[in-house]
């Protein structure tokens, strides 16, 4: 039964009953002692002739006493109330039955709404301070400017047309790549900025302007989930690696700033392939796993160039007592990434004398391992992750080093390590949740070989859907292993981010 109809039915039955009670009630109300004695009726200006009577005139108290109901009246009233209550219970019961009848108890073909749409958004302002002599100030276009931003506009399309099968597509709408630098000027050639402006051919004015943006497919998969211990997911999914990559969205993540192992893509953020996952319970502990078989990294193409698959997985143990929720996890990924170019060449053996020749520009194998811990103790949330990555290039297939800073060099094999700790505590008033986030990373590159980031942040939870997040970060660079010909601390940077975040 539709809600409005139900409400009308309920109101229709209850309103008259309440009115009956109101009409019948004066006697009952008279039981309550009045705060002030009932005043005597005002004397008439001209006294009317009075019939002589034997009874003395009634005093005000006696008048009030007259209004008190008799025991019989009260009993009748109680009986009526009981009958009303019974009638209401019956109506409620009938209503529940009607609602239950309208709601399939267990639909064999579907387990709920076939399609649900939800998502999140964040908008706000950013400011970064970087020394103008640092290369970073030119790489990051927003550096040293205050910029209002449209952050994430993400919509989820969650379909479950039939029980045990579910599909999820998450898309993000963005203004990108409007304004991106396509090419630097000077030594690098001719400066060029991406301009997505065009005239709106579908508009009502010939010269109405529009700026096209982009739609990012964050993930899209279909899964079969009948068995708790063995579920299959196929498509494009977030790599099951640690905490952050799964939390993914600004309302769920505690920190606004991303950790470097996500930014530097120390493991593939998402993969296209097959995921098998499930869990089982042993006492208070939930033991879960996810194993992936994929094309590996997707940064350069959605195709697999070399039949080298990516393998990975995660195992975790979780104990949730209701007051303390602890999750410990281990993750791993390995894969070979190859880039290739194809040249058109003269080939006498080809039918028309023209052939194609593939050549590898670079190829490397990586092993990435991670460990994570997540503990929620009441209003306190603690997150920690560590990632270790080893990259080994195939001999003779290393990419060129940075042409500007290290001309003639080649990329070396490398180790990368990252660890972060995040502690947040929700205060008992105004939804305030301050947090501290610190991250250390060793990652040899043109800026330095190590960095330390320290952030202080504040989340204000207005309600379960809307929060205001603000974070100040200081990033410091230094060399631990290598000597640098210049002072790397010139790259030290400060950032301030603020976003209004909404989940819906």
């Amino acid at each position, binding site marked *: 039964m539709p809600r409005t109809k139900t409400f009308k039915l309920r109101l229709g039955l209850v309103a008259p009953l309440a009115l009956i009670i109101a009409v019948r009630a004066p006697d009952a109300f008279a039981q309550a002692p009045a705060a002030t004695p009932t005043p005597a009726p005002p004397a008439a200006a001209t006294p009317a002739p009075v019939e002589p009577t034997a009874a003395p005139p009634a005093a005000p108290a006696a008048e009030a006493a007259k209004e008190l109901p008799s025991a019989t009246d009260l009993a009748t009233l109680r009986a009526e109330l009981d009958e009303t209550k019974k009638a209401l219970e019956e109506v409620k019961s009938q209503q529940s*039955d009607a609602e239950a009848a309208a709601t399939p*108890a267990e639909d064999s073909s579907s387990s709920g709404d076939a399609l649900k749409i939800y998502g999140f958004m964040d908008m706000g302002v950013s400011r970064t301070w970087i020394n103008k002599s640092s290369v970073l100030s030119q790489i990051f276009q927003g550096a040293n400017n205050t910029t209002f931003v449209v952050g994430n506009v993400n919509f989820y399309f969650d379909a479950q047309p039939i029980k045990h099968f579910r599909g999820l597509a998450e898309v993000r709408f963005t203004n990108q790549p409007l304004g991106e630098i396509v090419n630097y000027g000077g030594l690098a050639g001719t400066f060029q900025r991406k301009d997505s402006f065009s005239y709106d051919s579908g508009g009502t004015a010939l010269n109405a302007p529009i700026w096209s943006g982009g739609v990012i497919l964050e993930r899209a998969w279909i899964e079969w989930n009948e068995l708790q211990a063995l579920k299959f997911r196929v498509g494009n999914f977030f790599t099951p690696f640690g905490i952050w990559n799964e939390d*993914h969205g600004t309302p769920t993540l505690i920190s606004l700033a991303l950790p470097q192992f996500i930014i530097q893509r120390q493991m593939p953020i998402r993969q296209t392939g097959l995921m098998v996952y499930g869990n089982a319970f042993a006492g208070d502990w939930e033991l879960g796993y996810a194993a992936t078989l994929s094309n590996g990294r997707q940064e350069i193409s959605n195709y697999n160039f070399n039949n080298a698959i990516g393998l990975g997985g995660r195992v975790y143990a979780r104990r949730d007592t209701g007051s303390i929720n602890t999750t410990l996890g281990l993750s791993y990924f390995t894969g070979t990434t190859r880039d290739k170019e194809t040249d058109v060449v003269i080939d006498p053996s080809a039918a028309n004398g023209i052939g194609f020749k593939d050549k590898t520009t670079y190829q490397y194998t990586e092993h990435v391992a991670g460990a994570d811990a997540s503990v929620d103790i009441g209003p306190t949330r603690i997150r920690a992750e560590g990632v270790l990555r080893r990259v080994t290039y195939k001999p003779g297939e290393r990419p060129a080093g940075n042409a500007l800073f290290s001309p003639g060099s080649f990329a070396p094999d490398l180790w990368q390590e990252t660890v972060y700790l995040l502690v947040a505590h929700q205060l008992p008033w105004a939804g305030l949740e301050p947090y501290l986030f610190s991250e250390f990373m060793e990652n040899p590159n043109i800026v330095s070989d190590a960095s330390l980031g320290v952030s202080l942040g504040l989340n204000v939870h207005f309600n379960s859907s809307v929060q205001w997040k603000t974070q100040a970060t200081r990033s410091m660079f230094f060399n631990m292993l290598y000597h640098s010909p210049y002072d790397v601390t010139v790259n030290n940077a400060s950032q301030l981010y603020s976003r209004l975040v909404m989940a819906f």
Partner: protein
Amino acid sequence: MKTRRILVSALLLSATLGLCTRSSEAGGDAIVVIVNKANPANSLSAGDLRPIFQTTKTNWSSGGDATPFNLADDNPLRQDFDQAVLGLDPDRASRYWKDRKIRGGARAPKQLPSTGAVLRAVATSEGGVGYIKASEANASVKVVARIAGGKVSGP
């Protein structure tokens, strides 16, 4: 006097329509957790119920789908149940499910509009599990736990 009459009538009306401030555990009536009569489980603890109502446990230990039925977020029974079983107040429970959606996790339990609907759904669904007022339980379902004073105990 007339004003008081109208006031009391309005209170009566709002109480019947369920608009008054909620009281804990549905006005003192204990909550009972019910399963389908075919379910071999005779008693479920908070630890058993928590993963089922978090939809991380989707199969009964004895086999078959575990199908939890919830009441609406603002239902006092639901709020008492969430507090006792999940350890979450209404705000945190709401955030919990929003976070789950953003992570792309399994869907939340199906919400039904009333305890009558829960009773009927559990009675007719082999893997069904839900919660209702103790006074509403009948022979069509099996009571496997009782919630009173914020604690989950045996049936």
